[in-house]
């Protein structure tokens, strides 16, 4: 067997079950927004470890740089200035793939093996199987995957699956100078978050809480938020994300049913022919026309 850390839980466009005998510990990355100072060391570490380089952009008068996720920027810091209780608050959120337990990208992907969910919870894109259709973008409830203009492949955060595979923390977690990015088993991260939330509540953030949205079965990137009741404050983090009903309809039970219906039409036609026989031109009409021809010839 291959590395246990690479055991597969789900594979895109695959209808048979993956191997399930081994139980693997689920991992998670915990991003404590309240201790993030917005230094972007995580962005730099991500680019360095993954050997991706974005183009040098232009200054838009805000700290966000680049302004959005791209095929080369798998994580970006989002800076939001909001007023809470009459005070200005500067909320900084590290954005990127949430590694959902129920990943919309994987559900939407038509290419077998282009999107893999490892048993440890990481959702990874395998570009060699990617066909560039962009269905993952359509399926994602967080608007994370980006299609490269250069090679038409989809890219996003891998949660450093290569590092995690050999028991290393993701590059961003390793680089974070304040410990705002923690990495470990999902259970440990949930416990750690509970401590942080306790601290925050003592300091007056009574709505502090953990962001681990159940609409997508929980995520393997979680946030500690000071205003967990209003996740939208953090640059539009969705309050209750889930796979869109349209995507579920598009990729769910309707497709096998439609396939059966098409098979039914094909077989129905065949058996109609076999049971009723062809609709031929009657001998009677042919004879009639022949008679008319003879009469005209006279």
């Amino acid at each position, binding site marked *: 067997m291959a590395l246990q850390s690479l055991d597969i839980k789900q594979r895109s*466009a*695959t*209808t048979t079950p993956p191997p399930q005998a081994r139980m693997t510990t689920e991992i998670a990355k915990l991003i404590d927004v309240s201790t993030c100072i917005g230094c972007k060391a995580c962005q730099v570490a991500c680019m360095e470890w993954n050997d991706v380089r974005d183009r040098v952009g232009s200054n838009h008068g805000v700290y966000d740089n680049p302004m959005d996720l791209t095929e080369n920027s798998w994580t970006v810091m989002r800076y939001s200035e909001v007023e809470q209780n009459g005070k200005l608050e500067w909320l900084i959120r590290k954005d990127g793939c949430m590694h959902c337990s129920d990943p919309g990208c994987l559900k939407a992907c*038509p*290419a*077998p093996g282009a999107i893999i969910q490892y048993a440890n919870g990481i959702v990874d894109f395998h570009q060699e199987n990617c*066909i*560039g*259709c*962009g*269905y993952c*973008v*359509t399926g994602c409830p967080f*608007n994370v995957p980006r*299609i490269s203009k250069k090679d*038409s492949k989809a890219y996003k955060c891998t949660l450093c699956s290569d590092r995690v595979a050999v028991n290393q923390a993701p590059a961003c977690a390793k680089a974070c100078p304040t410990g705002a990015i923690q990495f470990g088993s999902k259970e440990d991260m949930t416990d750690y978050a509970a401590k942080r939330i306790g601290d925050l509540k003592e300091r007056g953030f009574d709505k502090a809480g953990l962001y681990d949205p159940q609409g997508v079965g929980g995520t393997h990137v979680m946030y500690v938020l000071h205003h967990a009741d209003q996740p939208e404050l953090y640059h539009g983090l969705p309050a209750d994300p889930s796979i*869109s009903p*349209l*995507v579920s*309809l*598009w990729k769910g039970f*309707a*497709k*096998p049913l*439609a*396939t059966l*219906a*098409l098979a039914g*039409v*094909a077989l129905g*036609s065949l058996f*109609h*022919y076999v049971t*009723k*026989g*062809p*609709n*031929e*031109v*009657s001998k009677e*009409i*042919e004879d*009639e*026309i022949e008679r*008319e*021809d003879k009469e005209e010839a006279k």
Partner: protein
Amino acid sequence: MIRDPKDLQRYTAPERANHWVVGISFILLALSGLAFFHPAFYPLTQLFGGPVWARIIHPFLGVLMAFSFLALFIRFKHLNKMTPADREWLSRAREMVDGDDHGMPEQGKYNGGQKALFWALAVCMLLMTVSGLFMWRTYFAFDIPAVRLGAVVHAAVGVVMIALIMVHVYAAIWVKGTIRAMWYGTVTRAWARQHHRAWYRQVTGK
């Protein structure tokens, strides 16, 4: 050598060529589209030089089909106006399907079923083209909710259209003497008198 010079011309060469451009592009679109529809059909991508090529080629074939169908639509739409006789034919289509077509009302160049198919395909073509553009990421960038809606419409209408074309092809196979009209343009007078008597009278004057 023509077997019977008195055979009736049903389609001109440009009409037939137009029909086959639509037909060929449809078959290629259905095969490549099904590959993305359900994993069971994914091996069909090999017919197009692999999955990435299938993804690249599919929308261009769609553009070809949209324009060629538009031409076909303009050619034939005046022949497909529904009449009371067509509605009666449709209400009694079951007799036809059972193989007993002697008592069916007299039909012009097209019967009610053919006309219904014509309009259904026209609607499908329009929906497929518009929803397809929403999904064509190489050249278009629509908002994600619009793309999601486009994807559902494209998949659902695609299935309906494949079913309609199966019926279309089967009807041509079932009614003997029909397919030649689309190969070389003519049908026998007996065929016309049996299946499209009003059209037969119109072209022969009998």
